[in-house]
């Protein structure tokens, strides 16, 4: 069986959940191998976790010459690894970095690229959501090595106990790949809540919060959810941009999305329409968001949310 490479998304060796989802998908296409760009010291520890989730092999690419630069060196290293392993596919997490490394790799290796997959079936048929989720599109890569970026929450995390054998891979990085330098980097502060794109539940607030996100955060905490925001809330300076859900923010597809004081503009829908269950609280019964919901409450979020939060906390006992 051919190898399928999964590019590991991690922060200092802490593997992010979507990587494990990719391993599940990779095993439908062949034998899963992970590619870890990081410090060699962390290789063994990381490989053990990746093995648990189905990686037979873990290529450890020391990132001393890679981490200070934007995407180009990673694409170069991957092109060399693709050359060596002739994989049946390379999977990336859909995010700025995953997409752009894949884009450069596509040109380098003469391979087709499909972005924002929500599913991959045996045989390499890829499902995407198009036009803000109004269409479902199926397709395939027909040339080169299929390169696919996959949205978080597109597959279950499975524990399978594969070998996770470490193999060091020495890549050669050219000077021309080192022209876009990362001059400064400030890691995002942990909010103590689940990450927006990974969360099973997202509770969002919009202009209707009037700038008071306490009811949103209260409900989020009662449900163990991540907090999101509309662009109106971000533009008003109530929430940082990293919380924005939508076309120019994060695209989420959780099990449950609760939109509060959000009208449901097309650009917001583009970021949440593929959520499994959608709930809205809005005081305007004509708000377009109600066209999408499984359950909606016409009411003031400032009274409905705190009361619901109290009831939920009581039920949980």
């Amino acid at each position, binding site marked *: 069986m051919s190898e399928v490479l999964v590019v590991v998304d991690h922060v200092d060796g802490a593997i992010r959940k979507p990587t494990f989802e990719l391993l599940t998908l990779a095993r439908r296409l062949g034998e899963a191998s992970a590619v870890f760009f990081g410090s060699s010291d962390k290789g063994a520890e990381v490989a053990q976790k990746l093995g648990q989730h189905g990686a037979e092999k873990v290529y450890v690419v020391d990132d001393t010459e890679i981490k200070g630069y934007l995407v180009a060196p990673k694409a170069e290293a991957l092109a060399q690894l693709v050359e060596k392993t002739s994989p049946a596919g390379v999977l990336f997490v859909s995010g700025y970095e995953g997409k752009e490394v894949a884009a450069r790799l596509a040109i380098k290796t003469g391979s*087709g690229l499909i*972005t924002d997959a929500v599913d991959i079936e045996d045989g390499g048929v890829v499902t995407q959501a198009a*036009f803000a989720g109004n*269409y479902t599109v199926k397709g395939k890569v027909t040339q080169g090595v299929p390169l696919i970026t996959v949205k978080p929450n597109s597959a279950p995390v499975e524990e399978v106990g594969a070998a996770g054998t470490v193999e060091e891979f020495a890549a050669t990085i050219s000077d021309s790949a080192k022209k876009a*330098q*990362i001059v400064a980097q400030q890691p995002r502060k942990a909010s103590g809540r689940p990450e927006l794109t990974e969360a099973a539940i997202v509770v969002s607030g919009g202009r209707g919060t009037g700038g008071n996100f306490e009811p949103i955060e209260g409900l989020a905490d009662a449900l163990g959810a991540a907090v999101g925001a509309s662009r109106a809330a971000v533009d008003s300076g109530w929430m940082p941009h990293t919380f924005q859900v939508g076309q120019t923010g994060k695209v989420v597809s959780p099990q449950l999305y609760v939109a509060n004081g959000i009208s449901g503009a097309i650009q917001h829908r583009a970021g949440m329409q593929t959520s499994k269950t*959608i709930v809205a609280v809005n005081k305007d019964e004509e708000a377009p968001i109600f066209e*999408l919901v499984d359950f909606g409450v*016409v009411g003031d979020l400032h009274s409905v949310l705190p009361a619901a939060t109290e009831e939920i906390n009581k039920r949980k006992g």
Partner: protein
Amino acid sequence: MNIVVCVKYVPDSTADRQFESDNTVDRVGVDGLLSELDEYAVEQALQLKEKNEGSTVTALCVGPEKAVDAVRKALQMGADQGILVSDEAIAGSDYVATSLVLAKAVEKAGAENKVDLVMCGMASTDASGSVVPAMLAERLDLPQVTFASVVETQGDQVRIKRDSDTATEVIGATMPLVMSVTDQTGEARYPSFKGIMAAKKKPLETWSLSDIGVDASEVGLSVAWTEVTETTARPPRTAGEIVKDEDGSGATALTEFLVSKKFI
């Protein structure tokens, strides 16, 4: 500074967008316009021109004949000249082929006067791949500074702020380079009446594939490196249950719903 800004012509995202029977995006039946995310790229290009005397901004678009509307809008906003690369053979091209055509057009546009900056939007509103800028950088062998939320330049030195998934980063590079900008860079200007009148006199060229030295066999639907096999309209969501909140009934109903779906 010689700036080329890549602007895409897309179906209006507030209209009923659809696919053709060959599974390509319907770019003719649905009203199209300049992708609104590319307006931010035009705006940043114009601001750089204003800061650097003697600069020119060229709007470049690959698309059907109607796509000239996107170029014209960029001219109305203030770009100096426009180029539309249009050729029947291009129809149905995927990212890879589109980036090839754009790269060759950028090379031709810079044949006499080297292009310092290729400016792009963060994503097209139809494909929303966010990959064409990186592909362009790869093809042109240029550094990329992409997804900029803040742009700073001093001569040919460029710094941008980028909100990646896990960190906020400052990226630095020297021109020539490829840049893409997000809507966080700030409001795009509206064309003024004067701008609209002036645009009518600005140079606007249409190039075919042979003008840029690309063979028809390298682009288009039949040679795309990806194939769309099926497009289905998502079934409309079945009408959900909507309740009116009266004296706290909304909170109880909401809680019941969440319990019934096992979220609690």
